[in-house]
């Protein structure tokens, strides 16, 4: 039994080299694809800045806090659009975050599986609605409702606040922020749901066994456990809200000024680029629009990278604590 009989089926040296070559080739092609995609991200960042460079050189950093957009006199500044972007996105998040957490709690803690599954699917479908269709609904249905019902209501009860003063308007910051809210709820609630479903059973059971109510177990055990994940979800939602151009463009009204009220037309970075680039009246305006694009890219890179860092640290900490 101990004699080694050469296996006639065993690969010869040449065949073995073929196998190794196939492996190396396959790995090589896959690596090229992966590095290629990374290179696209790098090239994209470079190209957007290269396109914006003439405007960055001409306008300098003061572009960031100049409030103007006048193609006739060729005076341009980004402040109106940075303001519009930040205000719409922050309002959207202030509404969407508690709603998303509540939806996630409903799906993981309250609803039975039979109820949770179809509702989770419907929330996912909300994310599937193309932004241009949501914008169409926003401009023709939602905007008029906001102007005729929501804004008069807000003025009546909270009119002493400057943000709810002034004449109602179909297009403006408020409808844009609310449309963004609809767009980010599915994103943040899906992540929150995933987070809550990962809270170790014994932790919440322990809290319940000590006599806390279900809500106390959620607030004092589950929410602290997933808090870093929720902040990452919020940042991802924020990144999405910052970058949305089309739906916002349809409902925000392309205003040129900063107003204390949320009602009158305004504009965001993405929306201004979408509405003006094709019809830009001069090279200088086109370059200034590209400058807006570079600002938008920087903002969304920062939000996304910080979200990733939080997620990574969260996962590492969990791995250490469980393993």
């Amino acid at each position, binding site marked *: 039994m101990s004699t080694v009989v050469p296996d006639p089926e065993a690969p010869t040296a040449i065949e073995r080299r073929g196998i190794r070559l196939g492996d190396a080739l396959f790995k090589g092609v896959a*690596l*090229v694809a*992966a590095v290629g*995609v990374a290179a696209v991200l790098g090239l*994209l960042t470079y190209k957007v800045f290269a396109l914006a460079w003439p405007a960055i050189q001409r306008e300098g950093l003061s572009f960031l806090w100049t409030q103007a957009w006048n193609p006739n006199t060729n005076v341009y500044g980004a402040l109106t659009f940075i303001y519009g972007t930040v205000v719409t996105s922050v309002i959207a998040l202030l509404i969407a975050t508690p709603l998303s957490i509540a*939806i996630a709690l409903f799906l993981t803690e309250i609803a039975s599986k039979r109820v949770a599954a179809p509702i989770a699917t419907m929330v996912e479908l909300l994310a*599937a609605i193309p932004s241009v*269709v*949501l914008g169409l609904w926003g401009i023709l249905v939602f905007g008029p409702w906001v102007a005729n019902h929501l804004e008069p209501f807000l003025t009546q009860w909270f009119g002493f606040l400057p943000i709810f003063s002034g004449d109602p308007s179909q297009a403006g910051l408020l409808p844009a922020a609310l449309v963004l809210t609809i767009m980010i709820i599915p994103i943040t609630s899906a992540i929150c749901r995933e987070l809550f479903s990962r809270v170790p059973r014994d932790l919440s059971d322990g809290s319940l066994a000590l006599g806390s109510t279900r809500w106390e177990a959620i607030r004092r055990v589950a929410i602290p456990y997933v808090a870093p994940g929720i902040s990452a979800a919020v940042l991802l939602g924020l990144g999405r809200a910052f*970058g949305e151009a089309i739906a916002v463009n349809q409902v925000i009204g392309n205003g040129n000024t900063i107003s204390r009220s949320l009602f009158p037309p305004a504009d965001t970075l993405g929306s201004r680029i979408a509405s003006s680039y094709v019809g830009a009246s001069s090279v200088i305006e086109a370059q200034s629009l590209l400058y807006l694009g570079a600002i938008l890219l920087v903002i969304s890179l920062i939000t996304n990278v910080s979200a990733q860092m939080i997620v990574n640290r969260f996962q590492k900490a969990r791995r250490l604590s469980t393993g």
Partner: protein
Amino acid sequence: MSATDITDPFDLTSRSNNLVRRRRVERLVSVLAILSAVAAVVLLALVLGTVLFKGLSQLDLAFFTKPAALYGVKGGIADALVGSLLIVLMAMLMAVPVAILVAIYVAEYAGPKAASAFRVMLDVLNGVPAIIVGIFIYGLLVVGHGQSAVYASISLAILMVPMVARATQEMLELVPRHLREASLALGVPRWRTVASIVLPTAIGGILTGVVIAVARVAGETAPLLFTSSITQNQISFNIHNALPTLPLRIFTLSESPSPDDQAAAWAAAFVLIAFVLVMNILAKVFAGRKRRSLEGR
């Protein structure tokens, strides 16, 4: 430390620890959570219902066979359908093979550090706003060459790759180790193990990712503004010219004051939504198949 002023913690009939108030808070929170979920469902129903109600009544055969008409006349969407179909198809052909290769590298070959770096890179690329991708392709290709459906599909492919790659990579990592080990132990080379054991096992999940990504980019408008917006409203299969597309048609019609245009916008939105919903149902079917194949049934 006298023991007399401490209430018995096991006395559940005692009201001293605010049990009533705590129960009330719990009930309130439950109601709020239920209301939030109901609000999300109602929103979906509102948007879908409006599109269905306003769009369906406008649909007839001519809407699908005629191209867009001049201002004030009711036209069709045949030209935009052809353009969207060609552009999304090309984007899919470009993005899917690349995305699957990237996923294979990350899941099968890369070390833990490289894998996590590539994952972050894909997620960051996924977070780049669509309009920025449009500017990028505009600066890289459209300047000097003019708009074209090919460039539009490249920009959509850039949006698709991270979505498909992440979905695929997660699926590949779900494939049980013992399947790979069994194949390698039989002397099957690594690449054939991946191609004939790992990929087929994960195929359901990969298809789910592809279908969802296709649905997402089919409705994407912003990159098309830069790459395929200056078009003639006639049916054309010439992919080297800018072609009219469904999302961009909805976008321009939605901002028109003409009631006819708005009616056409609803009808076009209905067609787009119907496509997206069908793709999502398809994704559910593939996801079901994935679960069965991973469970070995």
